[in-house]
């Protein structure tokens, strides 16, 4: 059994692939290790055998056959290749035409969506009293009640943008809204099926 850590170096040594210093180190090891020395001898034997097995020259006809086939193909490219070349060219032409049609029929650029329009600001008029301790109502259901307004009371004009509403709303009403802890803002979008409800509750922080 040879030494595993030396095997690779012995294999390189057998083929003359080591530098002087490395080869000297392997030689020292081989002189002390019979197993690795046997491995080196085997490796040299197999290498010599491999070279001998592959040394047999190939017949001249083999070379001539290759040359003949190459020159024949250069003189007359196989039809198969020509057909494939035409097939590729046709496929590319079809693909290019398809791309052209798609580009030509491309619709005009989609306009950017309109900004949401303010429809109403509904203050909460009455906030329900907090549930008694031990009530089985969930926090979520309590919050939902808190957000419900008694009646929608549009404050801004339909079509106003959100950024301009503070300046447009009546100052008295605006103050009333500000006093309410829960408010709802209804915003309309360009899509009539999409309406944005913005519910928020002020915590009494100073502005």
């Amino acid at each position, binding site marked *: 059994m040879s030494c595993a850590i030396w*095997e*690779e*170096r012995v*294999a*390189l040594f*057998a*083929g*003359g*692939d080591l530098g002087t210093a490395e080869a000297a180190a392997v030689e020292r090891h081989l002189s002390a290790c019979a197993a690795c020395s046997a*491995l080196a001898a*085997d*490796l040299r034997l*197999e*290498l010599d*055998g*491999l*070279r*001998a*097995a*592959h040394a047999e020259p*190939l017949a001249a006809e*083999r*070379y001539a*056959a*290759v*040359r003949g*086939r*190459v*020159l024949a*193909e*250069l*003189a007359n490219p196989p039809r198969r290749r020509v057909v494939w070349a035409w097939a590729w060219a046709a496929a590319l032409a079809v693909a290019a035409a398809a791309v052209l049609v798609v580009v030509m029929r491309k619709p005009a650029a989609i306009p950017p969506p309109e900004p949401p329009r303010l429809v109403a600001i509904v203050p909460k008029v009455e906030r329900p009293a907090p549930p008694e301790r031990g009530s089985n109502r969930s926090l979520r259901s309590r919050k939902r009640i808190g957000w419900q307004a008694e009646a929608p009371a549009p404050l801004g004009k339909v079509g106003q943008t959100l950024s301009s509403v503070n300046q447009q709303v009546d100052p008295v009403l605006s103050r009333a809204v500000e006093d309410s802890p829960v408010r709802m803002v209804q915003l309309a979008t360009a899509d009539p099926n999409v309406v944005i409800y913005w519910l928020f509750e002020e915590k009494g922080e100073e502005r």
Partner: protein
Amino acid sequence: MKTLALAAVEAGGEPEGRDSALEAARAGDRTAFDLLMRRHERLVLRTAHRLAGNLEDAQDASQEVFLRLYRNLAKLDTGNLAAWLYRVTVNVCHDAQRRRPATVPMEDALELAAAGGDPQQCAGEAERRALLLRSLRMLSEKERTALVLRDLEGLSTAEVAGALGSSVGTVRSQVSKARLKVRDFVERYSRRRL
């Protein structure tokens, strides 16, 4: 030890830096291209034979190599034609083998070798030669290529690395593993026969 430069001199006798046949072939001279093939056909067919393991596949590979040579004449660096041919031969053989894997697992290779053993050959050199030829089949593609170029074609480790686009360290590792596997294969086969 033969080097690529020596291979080039053996191939044509003319310094590759001033290769008139190559220049003429570039200009479209088919006779010059035929001469170019004659110069390098041994390198190409022999290497392909060693990599592919049979002459029919090796001839197909050689044909493809020379067709690629013709198509790339204008782009070739004349100083490295032998290295280019080795690289393309290896690539063509690898492509062919990927379409039809030729690597045989060690156990299968031993079975094949045992099955192919003729009673008359058992103790003879012919059997040993056949065994060694078969041993290349159970190496991985990269190990076989490194072994063929280094030990059978006689290129230096650096030249093998250059032809394969690899590092010297990688080639050394592949060569040493390949040698150990060949030796292991022969040893196991010999043990089985006893």
